């Protein structure tokens, strides 16, 4: 009897070990490339890159780096861009949530903001550029009537020296991201009760929320916030389109060095990537200080006993900020549409004088190959990610596994440019230059975290009694998964796929570096056009780039509706 129990126990242990194997594999598949990539990026900075004849330790690359003109300025732009973008986005989301969570306005803005997440960064940036440029739509609307301009002024916008346009573009894209992670965190805090409590004590909505609920919410969205810092300090595509050019932000210059035809520049690029890592870490350290200051401020707010009952101004400005940033992206897309079908459109006419499909007809033959490549790459990465995440969720309970979350977020918290270069070099050593499988794998690293985040909440929310019921009816684990759980979660995993698909489409730097110019997607092609400045062609590319992810979400919303058109509960 005793031995039998022992055997049972052993069998159960073996079962458990097998079950965690998949999560370990996924952790290794994400963590190892990031770590190796970091090493592979940092080593050449100290002269070690045997493939290019670097085999002794030296600080020469750093000396080269320091002789680069305006290096400090580039680094400072990157640092401030990261901090300002994160701070403005977070404060907007915080105040808006404080003022409106639980109201009808909240869900209205939520519906307005959510689709923004599917608009790729590059497309949003082009849209913004065509809105605010001296010959952009905004100035056309007030010219010559209000402004008196009959020809575009020679303002340096976008690409202004302080990177303000770039920050605006980043805020418009990062704010929806932070908003959605906040939305995901809200159900886990006692929102309604706390609201009632602080209101009964006489506190205004905003102040009551900030003191009573925000710390709980912030604790949950901290990793995403740091991901935004990492992204905004090291972004390349948005910076190429909207950022200053002389000097360009650090990341843009590094990307130039990395793709330079002179292979000797790789050492310089490596040293630059180490500096980039330093800039991002510095931004995170500064953010931690700001966090501490913020918490002191909150504590003194709660101790002061002041009620802050009249917070209409704060509330309204936060709401206006959210709406404005959403409106900016949408009108940006509209301007792109106008330009893509514009015939003659001289300044300061607000609308084109004639419409033509010529830009589309001219662009489509060249664009077909990149689009097919994008579809193969992104659909592949999205599908593999969904399968992996389903496997992970099916076999394990993850709640409370901080290590798993941390590794999952690693590709988002380490600046892309700091480990992609290393991966590229390892690919070179392994003879995998510009190979589709390697590129697919790298896309997968970035897609997995988002797919996991999107699917895990609905997965855990499904009433497990359905599965118990199915088991009691004699269904085995596979049958339960395929006949009960996955069909019931159709909308959730389709949405997760659409998110993975969209993330993959938007990836610029990974595709640029790993694809090495030989594998091009709609995104790399669109960004490459930005220097040329043909608005019609750019608009066609940017619109197509925005259209593809949108189609993904459309499918995710239509398919369940069609499949379950006779099932009332499944349509919601």
């Amino acid at each position, binding site marked *: 009897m005793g031995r039998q129990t022992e055997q*049972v126990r052993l069998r159960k242990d073996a079962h458990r070990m097998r079950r965690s194997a998949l999560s370990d594999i996924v952790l290794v598949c994400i963590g190892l490339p990031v770590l190796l990539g970091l090493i592979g990026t940092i080593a050449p900075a100290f002269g070690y890159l045997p493939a290019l004849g670097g085999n002794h330790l030296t600080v020469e690359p750093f000396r080269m780096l320091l002789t680069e003109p305006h290096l400090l300025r580039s680094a400072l732009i990157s640092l401030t861009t990261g901090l300002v973008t994160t701070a403005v986005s977070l404060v907007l989301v915080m105040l808006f949530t404080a003022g409106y969570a639980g109201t009808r306005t909240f869900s209205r803005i939520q519906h307005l903001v959510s689709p923004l997440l599917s608009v790729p960064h590059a497309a949003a940036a082009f849209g913004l550029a065509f809105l605010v440029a001296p010959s952009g739509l905004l100035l056309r609307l007030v010219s010559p009537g209000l402004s008196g301009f009959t020809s575009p002024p020679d303002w340096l916008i976008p690409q202004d020296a302080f990177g303000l346009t770039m920050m605006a573009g980043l805020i418009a894209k990062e704010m929806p991201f932070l908003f959605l992670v906040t939305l995901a965190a809200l159900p886990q805090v006692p929102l309604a009760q706390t609201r009632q409590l602080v209101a009964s004590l006489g506190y205004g909505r905003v102040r009551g929320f900030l003191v009573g609920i925000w710390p709980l919410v912030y604790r949950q969205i901290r990793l995403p916030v740091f991901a935004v810092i990492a992204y905004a300090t090291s972004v390349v595509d948005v910076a190429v389109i909207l950022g200053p050019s002389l000097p360009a932000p650090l990341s843009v210059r590094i990307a130039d060095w990395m793709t330079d035809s002179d292979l000797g520049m790789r050492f310089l690029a490596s040293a630059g990537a180490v500096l980039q890592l330093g800039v991002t870490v510095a931004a995170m350290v500064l953010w931690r200080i700001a966090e501490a200051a913020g918490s002191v401020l909150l504590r003194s707010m709660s101790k002061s006993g002041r009620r802050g009952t009249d917070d209409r101004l704060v509330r309204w400005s936060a709401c206006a900020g959210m709406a404005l940033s959403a409106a900016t992206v949408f009108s940006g897309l509209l301007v792109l549409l106008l330009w893509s079908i514009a015939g003659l459109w001289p300044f300061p006419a607000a609308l084109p004088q004639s419409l033509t499909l010529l830009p589309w007809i001219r662009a489509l033959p060249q664009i077909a190959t990149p689009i097919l490549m994008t579809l193969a790459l992104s659909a592949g990465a999205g599908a593999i990610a969904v399968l992996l995440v389903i496997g992970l969720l099916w076999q394990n309970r993850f709640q409370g596994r901080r290590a798993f979350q941390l590794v999952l977020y690693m590709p988002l918290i380490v600046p892309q440019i700091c480990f992609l270069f290393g991966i590229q070099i390892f690919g070179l050593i392994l003879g995998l230059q510009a190979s589709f499988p390697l590129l697919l794998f790298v896309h997968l690293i970035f897609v997995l975290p988002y797919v996991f985040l999107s699917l895990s909440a609905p997965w855990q929310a499904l009433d497990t009694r*359905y599965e*118990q019921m199915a*088991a*009691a*009816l004699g269904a085995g684990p596979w049958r339960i998964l395929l*006949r009960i759980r996955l069909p*019931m979660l159709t909308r959730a995993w389709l949405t997760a796929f659409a998110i993975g698909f969209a993330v993959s489409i938007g990836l610029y730097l990974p595709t640029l570096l790993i694809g090495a110019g030989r594998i091009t997607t709609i995104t790399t092609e669109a960004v490459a056009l930005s220097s040329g400045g043909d608005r019609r062609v750019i608009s066609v590319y940017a619109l197509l780039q925005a259209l593809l992810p949108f189609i993904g979400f459309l499918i995710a919303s239509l398919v369940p509706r069609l499949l379950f058109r006779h099932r*009332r509960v499944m349509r919601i």
Partner: protein
Amino acid sequence: MNPDGKTDGLQLRQIAISLAGKPLLSLSATVRPGEILAVMGRSGSGKSALLSYLGGFLDPAFAASGEILIDGRDLTEISAEKRGAGMLFQDALLFPHLSVGDNLMFGLSSTIRGASERRRLVEQALVEIELGDFFDRDPATLSGGQKARVALQRTLLSAPRLLLLDEPFSKLDADLRQQIRDLVFTRTKALKLPVVLVTHDRSDALAAGGQTITIGSEP
């Protein structure tokens, strides 16, 4: 759906369940075919944990021991789907993505083969509960009583060897409640199924007409 005649009852031997080292319940009982064992206790007494243990999906946070014998065979190491332990919950839990008929098809034992034979049996089962032309209906459009009847029929079609009831009547309103309760008890008695009913309602226990065990302190 016919009991195979081999069922000579359910024996629970020294079942003990504890949570985080704190004992929740311990009991031994014999439930003969067609008999209903009512287990009473207030919420938090471990009633549901007992049913989960019998059904084979006890949360690993609980520690449980004891033998569950059916025909003298111990079920404890057998996985949930092979136990033949039918379950009914507070909610009907009809699978929302399947039609009423497909819900029954899902339940119908796989020993019955052939699409047309399976379809025939399900149609017949629907007629039995007075839902003759409901095969293609969306379960969401059914009334509470209709859902409860479909849920019962789905479980019985899976040819269980015992039945576990987790307060299955508590969400129904009074007259419906008695009607469904009578239906369930009549059917299980006719099929000679041993039944374990967990409830906090004394009238359920009385209607069951068998032995009653109270766990935890008196409710």
